[in-house]
């Protein structure tokens, strides 16, 4: 059976269809507004708490060191790290500890590991992160002196 609607009836029907959607949209927008304000409050609180933590425990929560320029910088290879580790296992250092400049001057070490002198410090830092080495002390001029973890 064919149904014929007048223009008025069609407009009314359309209005009936859109009304609940418009209401839903308003509810959503109101909820977004509410959560946006809540988010703003949370962000402000986070900033305040982070600031306090940075003062109380700067080692962990202080400003992150600016990333150093890596362009053109040499990067240590996993092979070099492995070689340094093996050499240190086979040639346990004496009580003085291990530091990059000392290893760099050691001909046997250089020949065995075939490491580029510019990345020895990086290799030691990696082995420190792997817990193979422990940072024992800071030397004069800020050099890091490590020991093999027993």
């Amino acid at each position, binding site marked *: 059976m064919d149904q014929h609607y007048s223009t008025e009836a069609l407009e009314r029907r359309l209005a009936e269809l859109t009304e609940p959607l418009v209401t839903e949209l308003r509810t959503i927008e109101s909820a977004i507004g509410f959560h946006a304000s809540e988010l703003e409050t949370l962000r402000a609180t986070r900033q305040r708490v982070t600031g306090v933590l940075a003062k109380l425990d700067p*080692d*962990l929560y202080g400003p992150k*060191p600016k990333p150093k320029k890596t362009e053109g910088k040499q990067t240590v290879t996993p092979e070099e790290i492995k070689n340094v580790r093996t050499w240190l296992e086979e040639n346990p250092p004496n009580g003085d500890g291990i530091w990059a400049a000392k290893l760099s001057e050691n001909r046997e070490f250089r020949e065995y590991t075939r490491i580029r002198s510019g990345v020895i410090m990086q290799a030691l830092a990696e082995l420190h992160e792997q817990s193979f080495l422990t940072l024992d002390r800071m030397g004069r001029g800020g050099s890091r002196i490590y020991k093999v973890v027993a």
Partner: protein
Amino acid sequence: MREFRDLDLMLKLKEAGPIPSKELAAECGADEFGSHLGRRLGWMHRYGMVERDPKTKLWSLTEAGGRVVWAKKRAALMDELEALPAEELIEVMAAITARYRLGDPMTAVMLRREFIFGTRR
């Protein structure tokens, strides 16, 4: 002081035995670390890694801290971990995070701090 991991300081305490913070700062290579080290030890104390005798004012490892320091790494396990493809490390991480949630609070804190230390570079 930020170059030192918690574990580094704990190993020093294990080696040195009960020690005043000033001496520990000197052991770390510079007296000027003093105030930083004091704050750091304060946090580590709060997390249960180290303790300070109120009478002698000497710092030492707690029993739980001692267990962490004495835990020997199993070489075979470390080799296995190294050999794992990166994708499989995700499952290892899931196991670690489960321990983080369910394990003892001090170990959980150490895991969190190790993660922060290792990922801040």
